[in-house]
C-alpha cells in the first residue's frame, strides 16, 4: 500500500497533495457508515411521523385528505410548492451539472424557473377559482366529465409514473452511497415511508413534510454557498478564477458548452421546462390547499422567490465543488484519477455527489450528515407529493367522477385513494428495483415533456378558449401524450444510450420532443374543436361564459372545507 502511494505520488507529481491523500484513500475502508447522517435522518423521520400522526387525527373529510382542508396560508404553500419542485434531482443534479460543465448548469436552472411566472399570470388564480381537488376539476368544468377525467388521469398518471421512477432510482443510489445501505433496502424504505405519510396523513402531512424539508434544504444550501463565498472573501470573481484554473475545461466553463448542441434542441428543451412546470399534477394540486385565489397567487410569488434563490445557490455550490472537491483527494477515486488525470471525472460516486462532498469539505462530518439527511428527506417529500397526486387522480377523477359519476361516498373515495397510494407505493418500489441499472436520466425530461404536451395545452385552452370542445381536448391531449412518449423513445437519449442503437442513428435528433409534441397537441385541439359539430360541442361552448366569470371572480368557487 505504501509502495502504491509512493508510485502514485510520482505519477501525479504535479499535484502532490492529491497523491498523498490518494494513498490514504486506497488504504482506507469503503464508504464508512456515517452515524451523524443516520442520527439526523432518524430525527427527521421521527419528526415527520409525529406530524403524520397529528395530521391523521385531523384528516376526516375528502377536502382534508386532498387539499389539507384549504387551511394552508400563501406563505406556507409557497414553501411547499418550492419543496415539491426542489427535488434531489434539482439539488444534486444541477450542482453536479455545474460541477462538470459550469455554465450549462445555469441554463437548466433558468429553464426550470421561468415556468413559474407563467403559472402566476395565467393559471394559479383561475385554477383555484375553478377547481377543488385535482386539475381535472378545471379541465372538465364545462366539458364532458367522463372523457376529460380519463384523459387527465392518463396525463397525470404517466407524468407521475416517470417522475416517480426517476426519483426512486435516484433515491436508491444516493442512500446506498450515503448510508451504506443495500439498494433494495433503500428503495423499500423510501416507498414504505411514503405510503405511511400519504395514507395516514393525506395532503396535510404531505404539505408539512414538504415545508420542513424546504426550510432544511434552503438553510443547508445557504450555509454551503455562504461558506464557499467566505473562503473567497465573498468575491465571485475570485471563486470563478480559482475554478477556471483547476477545471480541465478551463475558461470554457464560463460559457455555454456542449450540453446544448443544436438550436432546435435548445428551444425544444426550453419549451418543455417552461410549460411542463405548468402541467405537473403534484404542483397544480397545491393550489387547492389555500383558501382563495389571492392566496394562490401569493403562494406562487413566494415559491418563485425561493426556487430562484435556491438555483442561484446551487450555481455557487457547483463552482464551490469545482474548487474544493475536485482538488481534494479525499473525495476522489484514486484509480479513475490515475487514468483521467481529472479531479472532475474522478469524483467518488459520480458528479451527483458534488454537493454532498462539498458539505463535508466546508462543514466537516456533522454538516455532511445534515446535508445527507436533507437529501434523503427531499426524496421522501417529493415522492410523497407525487404519490398523493397519482392517488388523487385515481380516486377523485377515475373512481369518484367516472365510475361513480360524481356520486361517490366521501369515505369510500378516501378509502380508494389510500388503496391507490399503497398500490402506487408497491409499484414504485418494484419499478425502482427493476430500473436499478438503467439510465433513467431521460425520465424527468419525459415527465416534463408529457406535462407540457398533454396536461398544459388542455388546461390552458379550457380556461381561455371558448371554442374548445370535449372532442378537441381529448383528441389533442392524447395526440400530445403519444407524440411526447414516441418523441422521447426515438430521441438520442433513449434510442442510443438506453436502447443501445448505433450513435447517430436516432430517428429524431431532438433530446426533448416538446417543440413538436406541444405543436401537435395545440393544433389537434384547435382543429378538432373547430370542426366539431356535435351536440356536446354546443354544450361545451355554451358553458364557457359561466366558467369564465367564475374563473375571474371566484364567485361560486369551492371553499375547500367541506364541513
Amino acid at each position, binding site marked *: 500500500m505504501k509502495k502504491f502511494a509512493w508510485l502514485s505520488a510520482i505519477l501525479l507529481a504535479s499535484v502532490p497533495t492529491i497523491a498523498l491523500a490518494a494513498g490514504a484513500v486506497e488504504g482506507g475502508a469503503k464508504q464508512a457508515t456515517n452515524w451523524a447522517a443516520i442520527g439526523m435522518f432518524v430525527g427527521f423521520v421521527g419528526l415527520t411521523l409525529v406530524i403524520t400522526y397529528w395530521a391523521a387525527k385531523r384528516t376526516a373529510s375528502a377536502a382534508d385528505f386532498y387539499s389539507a382542508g384549504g387551511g394552508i396560508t400563501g406563505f406556507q404553500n409557497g414553501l411547499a410548492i418550492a419543496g415539491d419542485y426542489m427535488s434531489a434531482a434539482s439539488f444534486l443534479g444541477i450542482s453536479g451539472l455545474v460541477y462538470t460543465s459550469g*455554465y450549462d448548469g*445555469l*441554463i437548466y*436552472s*433558468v*429553464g426550470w*424557473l*421561468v415556468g*413559474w*411566472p*407563467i403559472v*402566476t*399570470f*395565467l393559471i394559479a*388564480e383561475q385554477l383555484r377559482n375553478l377547481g377543488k381537488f385535482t386539475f381535472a376539476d378545471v379541465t372538465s368544468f364545462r366539458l364532458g366529465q367522463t372523457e376529460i377525467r380519463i384523459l387527465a388521469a392518463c396525463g397525470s398518471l404517466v407524468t407521475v409514473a416517470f417522475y416517480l421512477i426517476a426519483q426512486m432510482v435516484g433515491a436508491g443510489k444516493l442512500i446506498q452511497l450515503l448510508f451504506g445501505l443495500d439498494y433494495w433496502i433503500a428503495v423499500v424504505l423510501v416507498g414504505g415511508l411514503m405510503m405511511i405519510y400519504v395514507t395516514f396523513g393525506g395532503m396535510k402531512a404531505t404539505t408539512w413534510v414538504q415545508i420542513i424539508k424546504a426550510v432544511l434544504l434552503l438553510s443547508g444550501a445557504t450555509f454551503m454557498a455562504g461558506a464557499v463565498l467566505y473562503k473567497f472573501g465573498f468575491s*465571485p*470573481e475570485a471563486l*470563478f*478564477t480559482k475554478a*477556471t484554473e483547476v477545471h480541465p475545461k478551463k*475558461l*470554457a466553463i*464560463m*460559457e*455555454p*458548452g456542449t450540453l*446544448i448542441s*443544436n*438550436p432546435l434542441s*435548445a*428551444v425544444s428543451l*426550453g419549451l418543455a421546462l*417552461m410549460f411542463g412546470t405548468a402541467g405537473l399534477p403534484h404542483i397544480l394540486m397545491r393550489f387547492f390547499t389555500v383558501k382563495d385565489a*389571492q392566496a394562490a*397567487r*401569493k403562494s*406562487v*410569488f413566494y415559491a*418563485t*422567490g425561493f426556487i*430562484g434563490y435556491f*438555483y*442561484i445557490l446551487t*450555481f455557487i455550490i457547483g463552482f464551490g465543488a469545482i474548487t474544493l472537491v475536485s482538488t481534494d483527494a479525499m473525495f476522489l477515486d484514486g484509480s479513475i484519477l490515475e487514468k483521467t488525470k481529472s479531479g472532475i471525472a474522478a469524483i467518488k460516486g459520480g458528479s451527483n455527489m458534488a454537493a454532498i462532498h462539498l458539505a463535508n469539505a466546508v462543514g466537516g462530518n456533522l454538516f455532511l450528515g445534515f446535508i445527507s439527511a436533507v437529501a434523503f428527506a427531499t426524496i421522501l417529500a417529493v415522492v410523497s407529493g407525487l404519490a398523493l397526486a397519482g392517488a388523487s387522480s385515481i380516486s377523485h377523477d377515475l373512481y369518484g367522477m367516472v365510475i361513480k359519476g360524481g356520486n361517490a361516498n366521501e369515505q369510500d373515495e378516501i378509502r380508494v385513494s389510500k388503496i391507490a397510494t399503497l398500490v402506487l407505493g408497491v409499484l414504485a418500489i418494484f419499478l425502482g428495483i427493476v430500473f436499478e441499472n438503467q439510465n433513467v436520466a431521460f425520465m424527468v425530461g419525459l415527465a416534463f415533456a408529457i406535462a407540457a404536451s398533454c396536461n398544459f395545452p388542455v388546461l390552458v385552452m379550457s380556461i381561455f378558449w371558448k371554442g374548445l370542445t370535449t372532442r378537441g381536448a381529448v383528441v389533442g391531449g392524447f395526440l400530445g401524450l403519444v407524440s411526447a412518449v414516441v418523441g422521447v423513445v426515438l430521441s438520442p437519449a433513449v434510442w442510443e444510450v438506453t436502447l443501445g442503437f448505433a450513435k447517430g442513428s436516432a430517428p429524431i435528433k431532438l433530446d426533448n420532443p416538446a417543440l413538436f409534441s406541444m405543436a401537435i397537441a395545440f393544433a389537434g385541439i384547435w382543429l378538432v374543436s373547430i370542426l366539431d359539430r356535435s351536440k356536446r360541442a354546443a354544450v361545451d361552448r355554451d358553458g364557457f*361564459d*359561466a366558467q369564465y*366569470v367564475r374563473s*375571474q*371572480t*371566484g*364567485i361560486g368557487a369551492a371553499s375547500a372545507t367541506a364541513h
Partner: protein
Amino acid sequence: MSNLAKIERDPNYRELVRRRSSLGWLLSAIMLVIYFGFILLVAYAPKFLGIPLGSGVTTIGIPIGLSVIVLAFVLTGIYVRRANSSYDVLIRKIVEENRS
C-alpha cells in the same frame, strides 16, 4: 343565469377582466421574450455569452443568466402587487353588487 348576465354587464367586472388579461398576457409575453432571447443566445451566440467582463474571468453570460432568474421573480412580484391592490378591490365590489 340572469345573475351571470348581470355580472357580465357590470362595469367593474369588465374593468377587472380587461386589466387582468392585458397585464397577464403582457407579462407572459415579456417573460417568453426574455427567456427565449436567452435560449437563442445560448443556441446561436454561445461565444457572446463567453465574453469576459473587464479583465477578469467572469463572463457576460453570468449576469445575463442570473438576471433572467431575478427578472422572473420581479415580473411575478409586479403581477401580484397589481392584483393585490386593484383586482381584489374590484372583485369585492362585484361580489357585493351581485349578492342575492
